[in-house]
Structure formats: C-alpha cells, structure tokens
C-alpha cells in the first residue's frame, strides 16, 4: 500500500508541477487541456519556474496551486522514475558529505537520514567546518580524506576540480533523466572545467532583493507604496519628518538596511535605477563597461547621497550589524528597507514584529522607478552550490541516483521538508500539505515543536516547487510568499561577466573591492567630493581594474565567441 501511494504521489506531484506552469501562463483555469499538458511535459522545470512568474499576486498563485491539484487528478503524465522500493534498497555504505555550514540535526531530520539510507544505501554523515570550512576542506583534500561528495560554492569547486579531485560526470550524467531535466542549459558551462563536467549544479532564482515598507505608516500619512522616484522621496521625507508612528517624537528614518551576504551595503535598488552595480560588467554592443567606474554608478551614489544628506537615511546604515538592524525594525525606528526576500517574513517569524509593533504591517513594493526611468534590483547568481563526487568514491552512480531522486517532486519534498506524514502530507486525492514550520514558536502543523530542519539533505533546490510551502495561513507564511514573489518579479540588473573568473580576478579583485567600498562610503558621507571622481577612476585603474577586466573579457570572448573590447578609460 505504501509503495502504491508513493508511486501515486510521484505521479501527482509531476502532474502538479506541469499543470502549475500551464495554469499560470494560461487563463488560470483549471481545465488545462491534455494537449497543453503533454506539451508542457516536454519543457524543463526551468520553464515552469519562469512561466510561474506570471502569477504576480499571491491570489493568482493560490489559484494556480489549486488548479494544479485539480489537474493532477485528471492528467498524470508519468515523467519521473518511482522512488526505489524500500525492500529492494541496496546494501548500505557509509558516505561522508561535506557541507560548509552544519545545520542542527534532530530526531525529525534523522527520519530523512534513515529514509535515504534505506532507499539508496547511503548512510550519510556530514562533515562541516563552521566558519573555517575552507581550511577544513583543504586539510581533508591534502590529507587524502576527501569526502565522498562535496556541496561547495562555485569558486571552491573550480579550484579542486582543476586539481582532479572529483569524478568525471560528463558522460554518466546522461543516464539520469531527472538531473538532465533539472539542470538548465546555461548552468552546465558553469561547471565545466577543462572541457569536462565534475559536478551537478543546483538552481536558484536570480531575483532576491526586495524593498519593503511599513504599510501602517503609509496609511497614517495618507500615502501609497511608491512607484516612481518622486513618490519614493516623498515617502522617505514623510517617514522621517511627519512623525509616522504618531508618538510626537522625531525618532524615525525613512531608510535603513542590513548588510548582504558579503558584507556589502545594500544599495541594490539604487544600482537598479541606473543600471550599474560596483562589481558588475556590462557589454554594450562591442564595448565592455566596468560598472564600478561608470557614469551610472556615480549617479546611483549621487542619488543615495541626496537622501542621506536630507537625513532620510539611518546614519548607522554603513556600520550596523544584523542584530541592530532587526532591533530597529521591531522597535519601529525606520519605515523602509531593501533586503533579502525572506527578511519580510523573518521580521514576523524570528524577531517578533507583530508583538512589538501592535497594528504594524510590513508590505513589499516594486523596485522604484528611478529618475531616468530605469528600475530593478541587482541579480543573484541563478546557480546555487555544486555537488561534486570524490574521484576516490567507488560508486558514483549510487550518489547520482540519489541526486536524481532529489530533483523529483517527491524526493525534493522528503529531502527538504522531511518524510511524508511528518514534513508534508499528500492524500490519495493529491491534496498536498506542508507541515513545515514558519511559526515563531517553531510549531509544526501537527503541534510538535521543531528546531532544526532536514534541509541539509536537499542538495539541489527545486525553485519551482519551493513557493508551494509558502502558501499558508500564518502571517509569516503569507509574508514569505509575498517577499518571494516580489523578489522574483522585480526587474533584474544582470552581470554580463557572471561566473567568469581568472587569476587576476582572484588575486587583485579583493583589494579593488575594498577600495571601491571605501570610496562608496566616502562619496556618500561627503568625505570625498564627486569632483574627485576622475581621481577615483585613475586609482581604480592603477590598482589593476583594467587588467582584471581584460582577463575576464578574454574568458567572455572565448566562451561566447565574441570579440568585445574594454571601453577606453584612460
């Protein structure tokens, strides 16, 4: 019975994915035709994700999900292999898996661990290095103890792949239909080292950054979520000067922000307004523009400086750490910020926003359209971490089989949210429910408390299925979905040199970046005048900025068969 149910679950899951795509791009009706379904069946999951973007409100997406469930009952194209029979599971072998950061293991996550062991014969134990993980990994490799497989960011993968640390997957990957369907064509080149492929790349969405506001403050002031730059400045002004919280004190700011994953000050929306971000490169026609010394970047800083000079920006924006940022948010010290999409939900689920700000409402908005008519947020890398198998590991097929299963609907849910019945439920009618917790008290839907999660067993993200578990009743879930959609749907500022690397880039860029960051702060604070912009550009070039760009350009030209050249900055 359990076996039958599992097969059914898989079939329904597959149908759900496909019909979600079709429901979202079509009229939103549940009666998607069988022809459309089979057409959709030939498309990859990527298309599903992209088309799902059409669902721009949570309402539409809920409809899509409902439609998907209904459609799943009628059409059930079997495009995926079934989960292996538990009884027929291969003999278990111990495998070590390297992940940079350990997550807390619990009895709950152990259920997933046991499931993987029973079905795939992989007795997984994790090796991680906390904040010394790069050194830890170097030690393991040089000591001959390279883990069975490693989940690594691209940079570390390149380094060790070029030294021959991993099994060549170029040919055998073709035996795994789900993996081949999962990885989009633009990602394979990203994991190609010397013409061979040594890793399975994970996927991600590029749109991550979101601008959020205090809706209750906007209401108090009789304002709307701003769309144009003029409206935005008015909101910033009113949040700062018009006592939006009505406490009679001049103690609020319009804008504040956390720092991003690399410690950068988050000006992503301002970069989007001018189409230039400090670490990006743009190819216009045949000419490559280095954003860090471009006119657009300068204008972005001038725009932000203007808000800063008017004191609409939290003066601690350049120095504060995450904790201070969250404290100010839940204490109502600022009314808007640009942040990672899940911060909107995190305010409710992790930092007690509702309890601290009774009547307070956070809402996301679209990326503000800049003075020149451009808008957007800087794009994140659509490639997540890579999974590479050790050259020493005797049975790479066993790992690939597991990864192949991880990219199926059922496999993704089990590996990410916990085993069926505990992490999610799927009844015979195809009704899917996630029990996964976003509750501030970490209460699962069945009432048990869980800290930690089985997410560690999910090495390949299904970004198309991911939003499903955000469709819930709690405010944190709703805000998570809102943030996700907002981030996904914002226009994106792309880096044309994304994923390219060179020796010069690795050696010189850290110093250049330090200089650029320093100058950014000086320009905004007024310690350095914009009259000295040319001196800044000169220093950028003196530090080796042109050589780095040239070296990346060589990669770019070779890769795309282009013949672009760097703009003349001398």
């Amino acid at each position, binding site marked *: 019975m359990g076996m039958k149910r599992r097969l059914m679950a898989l079939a329904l899951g597959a149908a759900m994915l496909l019909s979600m795509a079709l429901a979202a791009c079509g009229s939103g009706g549940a009666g998607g035709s069988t022809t459309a379904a089979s057409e959709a069946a030939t498309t990859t999951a990527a298309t599903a994700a992209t088309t799902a973007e059409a669902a721009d409100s949570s309402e539409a997406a809920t409809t899509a999900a409902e439609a998907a469930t209904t459609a799943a009952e009628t059409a059930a194209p079997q495009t995926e292999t079934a989960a292996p029979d538990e009884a027929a599971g291969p003999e278990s072998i111990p495998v070590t898996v390297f992940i940079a950061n350990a997550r807390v293991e619990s009895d709950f996550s152990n259920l997933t661990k046991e499931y993987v062991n029973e079905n795939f014969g992989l007795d997984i134990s994790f090796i991680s290095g*906390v*904040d010394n993980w790069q050194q830890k990994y170097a030690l393991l490799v040089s000591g001959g103890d390279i883990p069975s497989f490693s989940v690594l960011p691209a940079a570390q993968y390149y380094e060790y792949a070029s030294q021959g640390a991993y099994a060549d997957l170029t040919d055998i990957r073709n035996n795994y239909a789900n993996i081949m369907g999962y990885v989009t064509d633009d990602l394979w080149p990203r994991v190609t080292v010397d013409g061979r492929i040594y890793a399975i790349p994970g996927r991600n969405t590029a749109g991550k950054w979101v601008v959020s506001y205090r809706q209750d403050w906007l209401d108090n002031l009789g304002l709307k979520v701003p769309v144009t730059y003029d409206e935005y400045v008015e909101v910033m002004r009113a949040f700062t000067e018009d006592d939006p919280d009505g406490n009679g004190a001049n103690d609020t700011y319009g804008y504040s922000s956390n720092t991003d994953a690399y410690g950068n000050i988050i000006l992503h929306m301002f970069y989007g307004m001018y189409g230039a971000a400090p670490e990006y490169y743009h190819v216009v026609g045949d000419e490559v523009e280095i954003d860090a010394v471009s006119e657009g970047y300068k204008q972005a800083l001038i725009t932000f400086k203007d808000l800063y000079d008017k004191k609409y920006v939290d003066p601690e924006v350049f120095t504060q750490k995450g904790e201070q940022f969250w404290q100010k948010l839940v204490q109502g010290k600022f009314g808007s910020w640009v942040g990672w999409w*899940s911060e909107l939900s995190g305010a409710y689920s992790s930092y007690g926003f509702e309890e601290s700000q009774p009547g307070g409402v956070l809402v996301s908005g679209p990326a503000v359209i800049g003075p020149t008519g451009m808008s957007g947020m800087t794009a994140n890398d659509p490639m997540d971490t890579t999974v590479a198998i050790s050259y020493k590991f005797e049975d790479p097929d066993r790992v690939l089989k597991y990864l192949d299963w991880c990219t199926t609907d059922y496999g993704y849910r089990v590996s990410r949210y916990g085993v069926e019945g505990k992490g999610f439920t799927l009844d015979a009618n195809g009704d899917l429910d996630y029990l996964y917790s976003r509750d501030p008290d970490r209460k699962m839907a069945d009432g048990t408390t869980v800290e930690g999660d089985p*997410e560690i067993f999910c090495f390949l993200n299904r970004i198309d299925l991911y939003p499903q578990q955000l469709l819930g009743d709690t405010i944190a879930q709703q805000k998570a979905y809102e943030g996700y959609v907002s981030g996904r749907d914002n226009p994106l500022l792309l880096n044309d040199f994304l994923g390219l690397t060179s020796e010069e880039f690795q050696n010189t860029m850290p110093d250049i970046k330090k200089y650029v960051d320093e100058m950014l702060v000086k320009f905004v604070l007024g310690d350095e005048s914009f009259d000295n912009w040319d001196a800044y550009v000169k220093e950028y070039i003196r530090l080796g900025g042109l050589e780095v760009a040239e070296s990346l350009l060589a990669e770019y030209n070779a890769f795309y068969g282009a013949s672009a050249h760097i703009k003349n900055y001398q």
Partner: protein
Amino acid sequence: MKSYRKTPGETLFAALNTLFMAFILLVTLYPFWYIAVGSVSSVAHIFSQGMLLWPDQLSLAAYEFVIGTKGVSSALGNSAFITVAGTLLSMALTTMGAYVLSKPYLPGRKTMTLFIVVTMLFNGGLIPFYLVVKSLGMIDTIWAMMIPYAISTYNMIIMRNFLQAVPRSLEESAMVDGARHFTIFAKIYLPLSMPVIATVTLFYAVGYWNSIIPAIYFLNRRDFIPIQVILREVLIQSRPEALQFIDSATSQISENIKMALVVITVAPIAVIYPFLQKYFVKGVMVGSIKG
C-alpha cells in the same frame, strides 16, 4: 599611631574612583546579564527592548530545549573530559619539562631551551601539522584535541622561570639526605610552586574548554565534538554569510535558545574562575618578575 584624616580632595577622588570602577563593572557585566535575561525571555521581548534589563517571563523552555537537543549533553561531556584529562596531561608534561630545563647544570640546556622557544615564533604550517596528526592515527579521536596541544611553550617558560627561583640549596640538602630527582621534584618543588601551578592549570583548563579549532580540523565524525562546536554552529546559522540555501536569511533557531546555549557553555568555566583567581594574579607576577 595618629589617626589619618582624609583631605576633601582624597575623599572626592575615592568617590569618583568608586563611581568609575562601578561603571566599568557594569559595562563588563552587562553582556552576561543580557544573555542571561534573554535566555529566559520571549523572542519578541529580546528584540523590542533597546536595552534588555529585565525578563518578561521566567521561562526555562529554552534551556529544556537545549538540554534535549541531540548532541548537546554528550558534547558537554566531551568538553568536560577534554578539559580534565587534557589539563592533567598538560600539567604533568609541563611541570616535569620545566623542572628539567630549570637546572643550570643540565648539559645543553640553552640549546634545548632555544629549540623549544623557537616553536613560539615559527611552526610548520597547518597542512603539515594536520598530516602529522593524521599519520599518528589521531584523526577522529578525542586525543586529537589534547595530545598535539599538550604543552604550551609559554606556560612552560613561566613555570621554568618560577622553578629557577627556588633556592638551589633546597635541592642540595635533599640530595644529601638521599633524595633522587623525582622525589625532589614531587616533594619539594611542587609544593613550593602552588601559585604558578594554579595559574598554569587555569590557563590550560580555560584553553581546553574554549578550544574549537582542533575540533573543527581533526574531527569529522560528531562523536567527540565539544560543546563549543555546537555553540558556533548554532550562532552562525542566522548570519547572512551562512547563506548557502535560498531561505537562510531567517534563522531556524530562536534567539532565546541561542542565549540559553551560550549560558550553558560559559557557566561551567566561569564558575571555577573566581576560586582560582587569587592564585592566578599572584602566580603570573611571581613567575614573570623573578624570571
């Protein structure tokens, strides 16, 4: 003796001094208080207060959770074992090594000392160190946390300097009475060096309790990890740098639970500190000045 009367200036100075020291004390103690209060409060309370002074509740839920978390109690046990066994081992080796090196008539004493001191300035680097530990078969054993770190050169120099200051006539008279070196060491030198022994013991114990790097480098399996590793893992999870997966900007671990874990980690070593502190201060002075 005539009673001494303080001038107004002196009284003022004393008062200001007391105030100033009290301020320093408060600044120093507040982080501890903050963590302790946070660990029994609700998450919303922690973030809604600018300055956390009093808890909104006295909930032990966070402690219950931490104690019940897989691996925490065994990690505490590991830490305790590493601290006790490691300190005993270190003290045995350090005192004996220091005793030998403190003898002026030891042939080649200067050269030997030089060889030892050089390790304070230069070392072979991380990877060779790792390979040595690996070839000795200590990877994934609890001994990797102790044996490679058994002697701290700095502590041994402190100890050697102290022992050098013990009058040589004590040793000579014991010799006349027929005592051999081990007896002299155990019955005369050790009892005389209690201050420095207390100091160095404390150095070692605190070092072992707090050590995290060897655990990260030398332990792959989780059987022997100390509590510090778990603490670090939990604290790092909400940081944006830990952002490997698409949903990581929000923490999976509540703030009050992190604080409870900090209390559990810090408390055992903080508790023994005051008892040894009187020796601690005196010991360092004695060792260094007379050296």
